[in-house]
């Protein structure tokens, strides 16, 4: 556990969080390399299925980073994403896996500093939770699958 480095998948909206991540870099704000960013055209495109797949494949945590309330370029994709994250939390609860492994966060494109802060906070939270309980078996299955 001491050497545990969590793998965190962040689904980031092209119009806000992804640009904020870029800005964090330009502003030289450090954030942990544990966070693997997946750029999406809108967080409304992120489905329960994608988040579940990331967790099943061994991600220790997943967060969806969308636009601030009322700022979605596609009207309400961020609200839809929040509902889907809530659904994933419910499923995780049902199968006995910590629902805190999944979060919805919002920010604007100019909030580079906040992107870095949120990345740090979530990484630390997941580090405290420990590895995804399905991680080792999931990795074993992947090895079997790839022969």
């Amino acid at each position, binding site marked *: 556990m001491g050497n545990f480095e969590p793998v965190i998948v962040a689904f980031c909206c092209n119009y806000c969080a992804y640009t904020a991540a870029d800005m964090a870099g330009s502003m030289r704000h450090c954030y942990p390399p544990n966070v693997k960013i997946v750029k999406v055209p809108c967080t409304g495109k992120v*489905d*329960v*299925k994608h988040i*579940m*797949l990331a*967790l*099943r494949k061994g991600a220790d945590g997943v967060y969806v980073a969308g636009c601030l309330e009322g700022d979605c370029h596609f009207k309400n994709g961020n609200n839809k994403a929040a509902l889907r994250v809530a659904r994933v939390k419910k*499923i995780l609860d*049902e*199968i*006995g*896996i910590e629902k805190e492994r999944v979060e919805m966060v919002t920010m604007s494109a100019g909030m580079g500093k906040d992107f870095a802060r949120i990345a740090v906070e979530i990484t630390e939270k997941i580090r405290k939770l420990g590895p995804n*309980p*399905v991680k080792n*078996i*999931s990795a074993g*299955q992947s090895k079997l699958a790839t022969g």
Partner: protein
Amino acid sequence: MIVAEQKPIEEIMEYISPYNRILLVGCNECVTVCAAGGRKEVGILSSALQMAFMKEGKTLEVKEITLERQCDPEYVEELVTHIDQAEVVLSMACGCGVQEIARRFSAKLVFPALNTKFMGASERQGVWAERCQGCGDCILGLTGGICPVARCSKRLLNGPCGGSTGGNCEISKDVDCVWNIIWERLKSLGMEDRYEEVMTAKDWRPSWHGGPRKIIREDLAE
């Protein structure tokens, strides 16, 4: 459409926990529209079940297939090439689909992943409500196109009853009094006279009361 919802994962786990190779079969029809058992829901349940198994230190192989229609033999036949690799089948169709798989593959156990709820319509995104009970003798022509058989808690044919208050049914403030809706509809159509006509007792034999039903179209049946 037929409206269904997923069973609790705990119940599904009770069915499949003795096995480690399952065929998870969705359906592209009604249960896709009501977001209970289409391709997407198959993927989500597959991940959830595999994670639940892994958490217990076990593995679960899931073959995911979504058929065009699980209640139709010609599509269920597509499972022939996959059925032998699976120990059991988990169906995400309505009860009709589950039974069609059980009929076609008599040697294979099939479990339902959904609870089939009712025949209904979509009220708005994510909300479905009962509209038809398949009584076998439609009276919608007499009630302004609104069904008291499916939507009146007492199935009254000459409503409303004394429990109708402010447009709500006495069983819950969340349930509309369908006879209030029928009256408002007949009024807007200028058909108040229709409401004055007393409906005679309904013959329930065409409904389930006459036993399981079947339709044979002689011009189509082979």
